[in-house]
């Protein structure tokens, strides 16, 4: 486990706020997209892109780069903001998300957008695809790590567990899954739609190492990612307890904000709340 000075934590919190602001502005401009699940995963994505992952935005196909798969592809605004802020493409492109001739598709498309390792959109593919990537890395002796970010609702799909069992069979320590456990999906709470608990026990029963954290506590996120890197005999899942719509009071914990875009006044309030959090967050 590494030492993380306060200055680093604060810097990454700032980056997460920038990702939230970019995501909301993108969704507002386009009047389409998924704010709830973008806001809930912003801290995790900031930790990965601006600290943990070994990536080279100037060389997006670098064979030794760490791989990030956004299995919950509907949080594409968040991913695109992170890619732009990392320098994979101009930030100006974010303004054209969803235009007919823009490379930024509704959901991530690996053939169109630099930095996108795998196409996603329909839920459930990330873990099994990650197993294949991690196996290929092992075969070629490449040192990179593969991170798969999933939704909690996504974990209702059987294919997730097929992938989980395969990863355990091959003891893929170079694979880390992160569940954005915000307890909300499209139609309501996970509790009401299809209960997942005890979720940690399910992953443990599949022979994964399990780390449970507060997914908005930057220090806990960094420590969990460090710990995952130190487990050498099995894949790790980080179950990150989060709040859907985190940072915007009227969006928090509301399935209505899963896939709805804010109007002008709502965007202004959301921006004010997220910026305000800087001073007492």
């Amino acid at each position, binding site marked *: 486990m590494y030492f993380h000075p306060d200055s680093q934590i604060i810097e990454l919190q700032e980056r997460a706020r920038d990702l939230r602001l970019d995501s909301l502005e993108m969704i507002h401009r386009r009047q389409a997209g998924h704010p709830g699940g973008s806001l809930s995963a912003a801290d995790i994505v900031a930790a990965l892109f601006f600290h943990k992952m070994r990536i080279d935005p100037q060389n997006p196909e670098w064979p030794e780069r760490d791989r990030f798969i956004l299995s919950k592809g509907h949080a594409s605004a968040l991913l695109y903001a992170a890619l732009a802020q990392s320098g994979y493409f101009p930030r100006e492109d974010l303004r054209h998300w969803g235009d007919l001739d823009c490379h930024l598709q509704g959901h991530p498309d690996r053939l169109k957008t630099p930095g996108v390792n795998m196409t996603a959109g329909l839920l459930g593919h990330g873990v099994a695809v990650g197993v294949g990537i991690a196996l290929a890395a092992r075969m070629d002796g490449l040192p990179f790590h593969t991170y798969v970010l999933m939704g909690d*609702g996504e974990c209702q799909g059987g294919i997730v567990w097929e992938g989980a069992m395969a990863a355990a069979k091959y003891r893929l320590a170079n694979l880390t899954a992160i569940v954005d456990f915000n307890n909300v999906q499209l139609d309501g709470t996970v509790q009401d739609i299809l209960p997942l608990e005890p979720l940690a026990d399910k992953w443990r029963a599949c022979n994964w190492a399990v780390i449970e954290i507060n997914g908005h506590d930057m220090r806990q996120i960094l420590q969990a990612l460090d710990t995952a890197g130190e487990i050498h005999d099995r894949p790790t899942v980080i179950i990150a307890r989060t709040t859907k719509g985190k940072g915007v009071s009227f969006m928090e914990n509301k399935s209505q904000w899963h896939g709805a875009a804010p109007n002008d006044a709502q965007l202004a309030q959301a921006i004010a709340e997220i910026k305000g959090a800087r001073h007492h967050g």
Partner: protein
Amino acid sequence: MAEIPMREGYGKALAAYGAVNPNVIVLDADTSASTLTHFFAKQYPQRFYNIGIAEPCMIDMAVGLALGGKIPFANGFAALLALRALEQIRTCVAYARTNVKIAASYAGVSDFKDGPTHHSIMDIAIMRAMPQMTVIVPADANEAGAWVPVIAEYDGPVYLRISRAATLPVHQSSVTVQIGKGITLRDGGDVTIIAAGSMVGRSLLAADQLAARGLDARVLEMHTIKPIDAPLILQAAAETGAIVTAEEHTILGGLGGAVAEVLSLHHPVPLEMVGVHDTFTRTAPTTELLMDAFCMGVEDVTAAAERVIQRKR
């Protein structure tokens, strides 16, 4: 005729039919706020099952409910039902001939903003290849609603293709529909446009434009892709000698394929197909723009009609 989204016409009709037929059970896979089965869920919570993001499981559950004598309507995105839950549909619905109604929403490119992963441009071809399956593609919201009682009262598997969008209105709410019987919407002698789904309204506009150019186009709505109304197609072939098909789907294996099979087996005449040209689509700001960009515009229909008339001998 108000332009309401087709999914709303379907969702409201399903809720209304719930009062008529207590045997109807509705299932959804965490998309009831999208497919609009939430109208039914609200009125009949005890006959509604939301089973989460698990489409294959939902189909097999629907199969079990059908085995128990219920009439299950299984709802979700077309791209997921027709693709991810395909084997369940093939084996447990079609082959086992269970009385499951598959309501496949967000079909075609109607989910313009979510992009190609969410578009469903090959589902008709897939479902049509399946023995025992009835495949229905309504043209507008009123027609989508009209199909609910008809398919519920038909005994056998049905795939009902629902658009997310407000397609151009074609029918009054009193429209009556019959499985396997196409509808002649406009008579004409120079060419026949056979259309389904959102392309029906567009084909009627195309026929207006053709009329202004002195060409007299017949327009048939082929809502049932399977079993296809072969007599109506063959009559059109004999009387107009040229056919255009138009669908919000790939030109491979869908309505165009079905019509081509009937023509080439029984009465070959020149045929042009309007639809997506064997390519994946893109994300766009509106469905209409997307349809224009992927060869499903009104202009594409008029151009195809002019080409096919040229090919007549």
